[in-house]
């Protein structure tokens, strides 16, 4: 047994961190608040040059054919600096789904372009009905006059303005309560009606997309019709494992901020880290971080296996991470005191991202039920 990342994986982490440090860490995310994606684009270009975007793509499509675990250092480092954009949506959602369900033509069309960093794919799943379940998906793809047309509204589509294509979850069958959905891949064109939404986490852009009789071809449908929800779950395993890594990286930076501040900030003639109220609060943060990290490493290992706890492990990693991310980032503000409440210090960026991800794609109870059900309890 060896529960650690390999030397190569750790070395890779070093490259990414150095690169992101050069861009000023959270500076890239802060520039997105000001609607300036220039450095973000450069970061993505560099990530692609480093090979990150091809890590889990088969060699025949110009990738490195590695596993989810090999993406962990990248996601953790991106999380540390809260880098926004579509890396996770592309590499940890679109790629696994394409690999498993797409036709050879679809793979040829997308995988090499993703590996080279030419194509970034966003995810249009959520709708205004506040329910991430088959019942909550009302966007409808219908056959009409011998062609498919799409109607409906998607909300909270991440970084739509930077996307080259969208993975879209739509209803194709009104009868099927358990599924009846399908997955589409729609390239970005001027015909798409995209409207930026005002986001609580201003460094993570979201948009509304309205489809009005948009014509869709058979070739745009990924995998089996009416089985979109089921297929999506497979992709979401990878996505949620990746998300837990991203959050672990973010939490690590939060714990680091709190620890370092507590060492230097003095009140009552003492470094505040000497007070147990502060010290033990940071210790609790650290403990939560380490448990989250262990869950997330295991999740990214198990997702590429067929172990019985594959789903339970991934969803546990996700819920534990999202829940504790909010907690530690809130405590970080408290430990910083007044200055932690200012826009100037990074504390608030983390608490906003934490809230965003906690509410993204299903609540904690939603995933807890999945854990229990997947174990057959």
């Amino acid at each position, binding site marked *: 047994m060896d529960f650690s990342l390999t030397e190569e994986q750790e070395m890779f982490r070093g490259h990414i961190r150095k690169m992101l440090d050069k861009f000023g860490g959270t500076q890239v995310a802060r520039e997105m608040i000001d609607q300036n994606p220039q450095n973000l684009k450069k970061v993505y270009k560099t990530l692609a040059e480093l090979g990150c975007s091809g890590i889990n793509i088969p060699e025949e499509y110009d990738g490195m054919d590695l596993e989810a675990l090999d993406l962990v250092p990248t996601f953790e480092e991106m999380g540390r600096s809260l880098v926004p954009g579509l890396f996770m949506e592309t590499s940890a959602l679109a790629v696994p789904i394409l690999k498993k369900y797409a036709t050879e033509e679809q793979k040829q069309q997308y995988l090499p372009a993703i590996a080279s960093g030419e194509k970034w794919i966003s995810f249009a799943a*959520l709708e205004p009905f*506040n329910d991430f379940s088959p019942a*909550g998906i009302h966007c409808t793809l219908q056959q009409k006059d011998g062609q498919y047309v799409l109607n409906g509204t998607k909300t909270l589509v991440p970084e739509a303005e930077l996307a080259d294509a969208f993975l879209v979850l739509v209803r194709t069958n009104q009868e099927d309560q358990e599924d009846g959905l399908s997955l589409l891949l729609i390239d970005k064109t001027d015909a798409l009606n995209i409207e930026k939404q005002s*986001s*609580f986490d201003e460094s993570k852009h979201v948009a509304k997309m309205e489809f009005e009789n948009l014509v869709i071809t058979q070739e745009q449908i990924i995998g089996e019709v009416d089985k979109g929800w089921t297929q999506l779950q497979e992709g979401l395993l990878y996505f949620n494992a990746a998300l837990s890594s991203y959050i672990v990286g973010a939490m690590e930076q939060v714990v680091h901020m709190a620890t370092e501040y507590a060492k230097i900030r003095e009140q*009552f003639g003492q470094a505040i880290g*000497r007070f147990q109220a502060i010290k033990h609060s940071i210790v609790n943060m650290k403990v939560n971080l380490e448990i989250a990290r262990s869950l997330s490493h295991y999740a990214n290992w198990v997702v590429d296996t067929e172990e019985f706890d594959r789903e339970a492990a991934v969803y546990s990693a996700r819920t534990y991470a999202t829940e504790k991310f909010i907690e530690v980032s809130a405590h970080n503000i408290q430990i910083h005191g007044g200055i932690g*409440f200012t*826009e100037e210090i990074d504390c608030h960026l983390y608490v906003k991202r934490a809230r965003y991800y906690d509410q*993204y794609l299903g609540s904690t109870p939603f995933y807890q039920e999945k854990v229990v059900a997947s174990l057959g309890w």
Partner: protein
Amino acid sequence: MDFSFTKKEEKFRAELRTWLETNLPEGWLEGKRDLPEDLDEYSRVLRAWQNTLYEGGWAAIAWPKEYGGRDASLMEEIIYHQEMVRVKAPPLINYIGIHMVGPTLIDIGTDEQKERYLKNILTGEEIWCQGYSEPGAGSDLTGLKTRAVKDGDRWLINGQKVWTSFGHVADKCFLLTRTSTHPEKKHRGITVFMMDMDQPGVETLPIVQMDGQSEFNEVYMTDAVATDADIVGQVDSGWHVLIALMLHERTGIGAELFTLEKQFNDTVELAQQYKVNGRPLIENPAVRQKLANFYARVRGSLLNYYKNLTTTIKNGQPGAETSIDKLVVTELHQALSAFAVEIQGHQGVLLDKDAVADPKWQHLFLASFGQTIGGGTSEVQRNTIGERVLGLPKDMGR
């Protein structure tokens, strides 16, 4: 035990309520409650509102009648806060003048100072800020480094303050300075000045908060000038002034609690109206349980406040128990606003025009992080309760 109000108190409430109905800005009660975004305009509107209050005799009800108040009882103050929360009254721009500076001057100011300042506080002609915190002195005010040095017949003040509320609109500052050094007894040697904000030596910079607001300022003083007449109390005895001042802060936490109660009721309404795939949230058993849990905590804090208030009325001054009220109400504000955002699911992270429910929830959630820090952090409150209510030994370093 008796939870009813006296006839006199009910008459007071009715009088205030009638007055508010007539005098609130037009459309306010109906929901037209937008205040100008432009700072000058905003402060002009609020000064006007305070002057309206003054003219109605509602600006400082707890002050003695001879200084323009009503000699209001504590219970009347409570009713005042309840009613103001009920109508979501505009903020009191001279809060610090009315609730802190005024009562302190009435208590220990010289006749000249009373004459000079009190009426201008009431009318809103002079807005006050407080200069307490510094970059190195937050929870621990004894660490303050702003120095006032005598220079002939004036004092020259140098240093920096942070978290100066209303600093950007204030005319005067109630300023803590160090006038002598006592390494062993750091709370000695502090002097309170009433400093003019409008002078060359004073510069203010807004602090941008994590919720995008700028309610506070940094204040930089470079050879700012004050005179002996501007000193509150005695030189080097500022700590006593601070303590006197704190005893006058009798009912502010009551307003917080009434606001909390209102927000809880709004949360219930949110759960009744917000739908997940067509079904109201309130039908979800987990949401119902959490609402019951908040109900107990919110009611409990409010009742506990009444209990402490009863003690205050009997003893004539608030005890250390009020730290419990501050601790509980701020932590509940934080938990409740997080809950209200969380139950909105994925659309709960949409802001302003895109918010699906009242966009106030997202803002309240962000603002709530400041509450457990400002006015004494939760950690400091817990120390106070432990040491002053329970008699546990004092922490190190003090």
